[in-house]
Structure formats: C-alpha cells, structure tokens
C-alpha cells in the first residue's frame, strides 16, 4: 500500500534528528543524560527529571501494539485505503510510544498485543514514516 499520499510533517529543531534518522531507517528517541529516562516525541527536555541535556538513542524493537485502527475513509483525493495504523510501545523503553503504519499483512490482522518489528516506508513529502511489520 502506497503511503506517500498525505501531509508531511513540519520539521523543527527538536524533531529534525528524528526525521533524519528515519530517512536512514533508524528509529531514534531522546535519552536523558542525567537520569537515563527516554522521551518521545522529542522536546529537548526530560519528561522524567526535567533535565535539559538529551542524547539520541536507537530503538530497535521489537515492540507490541498498544492499540490500532484500520482507516477506510478517503480523507484526501487518491488516498489508498484501507490501511492499519498502530500505536507501538517497546518493553525495554518505557515512556516511548510511536504511531505508524502496519504493512506486510492485511490491515485486518492488526491486533492489540501484536509483536512488531521497527521499520519505515516512504511517506508524504519525501519523508520516511514509521511503518511496522508483524514479527515472524
């Protein structure tokens, strides 16, 4: 399913490293230099201790689906439907939840608790967007 029809993200100083890494196929989140807590989306501030020194670390998965939806509605002209959206959490990374597509299987196979591998696919505006696959 083509995911390039859509609306691209506005990129900010805080979010540019995420989208750069995405283009290279890597999922990165912020990690606090002071307390080690991880935060997403990036804010340049630790959501645990409010520290201001953050470094980027890679989340390599697998993750599990916290919740999902299958979208059937054509919100934009030429939007291919249906497709599944999953909200993915990672056992080793508390505080991190990432929304993305689910690809490589019929959208109806989306399920809470489904174990997924991290990945990306071409999205709107030339950006790579998070796109997970069911772990085999």
């Amino acid at each position: 399913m083509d995911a390039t029809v859509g609306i691209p993200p506005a990129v900010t100083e805080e979010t540019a490293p995420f989208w750069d890494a995405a283009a290279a196929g890597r999922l990165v989140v912020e990690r606090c230099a002071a307390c080690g807590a991880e935060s997403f989306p990036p804010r340049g501030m630790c959501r645990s201790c409010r520290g201001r020194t953050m470094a980027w670390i890679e989340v390599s998965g697998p993750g599990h689906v916290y919740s999902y939806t299958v979208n059937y509605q054509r919100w934009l002209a030429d939007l291919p439907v249906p497709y599944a959206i999953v909200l993915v959490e990672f056992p080793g990374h508390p505080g991190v939840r990432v929304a993305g597509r689910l690809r490589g299987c019929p959208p109806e196979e989306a399920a809470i608790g489904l174990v997924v591998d991290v990945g990306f696919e071409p999205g709107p505006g030339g950006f790579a967007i998070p796109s997970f696959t069911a772990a085999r």
Partner: protein
Amino acid sequence: MAGTGLFERRVVISGVGQSAIGRQVDRSGFQLTIDAILAAVADAGLTVDDIDGLAMFPGGGAANLPGYANGNLYEVQDALRITTTWRQGIVEGMSLPFYGPAMAVATGQARHAVIWRTVKEGSAARGAGGRLAYGSIKPVAEGPLAWLLPVGMLSPVCQVAPYATRYMHEYGVTREQLGWIPVTQRAHAALNPDAVYTKPLLLDDYLAARMISSPISLYDCDVPCDGATALVVSAAETAADLRAPVRIEAMAGVVDGRPSWEQWEDMGRVGYAAAAAMWARTALRPGDVDVAELYDGFTIECVWWLEAMGFCGTGEAGAFVEGGTRIGLGGSLPLNTWGGQLSGGRLHAAFGHTAEAVRQLRGEAGGRQVTGAEVAAVTNVGGFEAGAALLTRW
C-alpha cells in the same frame, strides 16, 4: 471546597441563542453569528447595549478543517456597535464554553459577556465532495499533528479510534452495546425541531453502516453542519434584570495525561481528573443529575464521560446504555436530549450541549423536556482538553 466562595457561583448563564442549523444553511458564517448573538441577548432579557464582553472559540482564525474557523471578533463588535471591557479569542484552554466568560464576569471585567461558536463545516464538506483531512488546509502538519497526519491519522476519527479499540478490548464492551448511544440520541433528535437528523435510526442500521476508522463507524461520528450558538454569561447580581438565568453549580477543566491524541497513557480512561475536580466543588453527587449533556464528537467520548463522571463504573458503560432505557427520556439519566452532535449537529465544543442544558433547566425544551429537571451535567471533549460542569435551576 464545596460551597460559597466559588467564582462560578457569582455568575449565571443568562441567555442562549442559535441561528438556523442544518447540513447546509445558505447564509454566511458572519450572519449566522449575528443571528445567534441577537437571539441569545434577547433570550437573556437584555439588549445589545448591555453586552460589554465578547469572546469566541476558536480565536485567531484557527482552522483545522474547512468551515471550522469562527470569523473575526472585532468585525462582530463593529457590527453590534458596542463598547467592550473584555474580549477573548480562545484556542487552548477552552475546557467549557462558559469558563472564560465566567472568569471575566466573576472578576468584574464584564457584566454581560457573550461567547459564540460558528461552524460552516456542512457546507465546506459538501463543497469539497466529502469530509476532508484534519490538516488539509495547511501544507505541513505542525505541533502534535506532525506525529499523526504523516502516518495517515488524517482525521479526528483516526485519532480517537484507537481509544475505542483499547476501551472495547480492556472491558469487553461491544458495538452492539455502544450503538444504543447514537440510536437513543436519534430518538431524542426527533423531538428537536432544530436537529439535523431526525429520521429513526435502528441498531441494525448502526451495525450495517460503513466503517470509517475501526471500530468507529458512520453513526459513531458527529454530523458536520452549519450553524452558530451564542451564550450570555452575566453577573449573578443582575439576576433581577434577567428573563431566566441558570446557575453554574460547579465547573472544572483539567488536563492531566499527555495532551496529544496518540500519547494519552490510558486510552480506556479519559476525563477522570476534570470530573473529580468538578465534583470536589459541589455537594451534589452523580445521582442528583437529572439530565446529562455529554460531549459526543464520537460515541466513545460519551462513554468516557459516563464513566469519568461516575454515572456508571469504569468499563460499565456498555451495560449502562444497552437497550437505551436508562439514557432515554424516561430513564434515570436522559443523555443528550437534543440529539447531541451525533444527530443534532456538530455545533462543537459543547456549545450545543450547554444550550440544551439551559433549556432543560428552564423547562423550555418542548417535547423533549425532562420532567422536573433541576440539575444538568455538561462536559466537553476529554483528552486534549477536558471540562465538566453542573448547571442548576435558578
């Protein structure tokens, strides 16, 4: 904290007014706005010259959807030819329609403040050949939307749907149960001459409707419409000058979880902090509520509020609404007696809900009047913003 001294006890809701409401109303949003304001001022028993506060939601020309924006406050003031001592255009912090005006009036910045919400989303959707993506009027997705729109969560439907998925999974609640919310509200809409959809809706119709973003189907979504609603908030000390004021017993707006649709920690529970803060300001209890006007952008939002407000326990809303008896007009908790946004129309941000609560408490709700209604609950949204209030008869 319950008792005297609460700022909301120093004000009343004195007037409600609405323009023509419909899927398509062939008047400009500006004219609909003026229609609603004039109606609300007259309803309060006031004249336009009495109005010294003006507010609108959303302010600043904010628009996420075609037909969503609200016009310009200064043009409205100019048309009304009044002097204002307080003005506000609100985007963030609009927990309840009357919250900002109540603060202004309670602190003496205005005596009679009007707030309005005007939508032309029905005409806009028609003109575009269908309901468009949430951020489609901008070239890029900004702020929290940057994590939603690019991956395909292109509408509030897609953004709220995972809450419904998670809720139904955790508590074993079914679409067959939750369908009684839109079905019952449609029956209420049939008694509201201003409602957009009044034809009976059967549970089978609900279950057979097309899926929009699972598990949210067509009749779980509110109806884009054209229309304006205005409210007048007045100082309680002016009550003798007012036709039919309604008290604000208690209100609160709390955002406790992560305020973005996909990051909210517990998608099975929404609105609890706002509800708890509201109940802490009153001696009334859920059992005292005679009629509930609970925000229903989607069916699941009603579910949040039924549970967060304590009308039923967490995970119990399916059993509570099943069959429609409890939430029907003769039931223990008549719900969205005007049809709600699901059938009455997406007047948005609990403006329609507030207007209906005021009419019920005055005994002016016509064929859908809840006999002896003395206490009404009004709630708004749930996650990103959340507001809860009790209004009571004067």
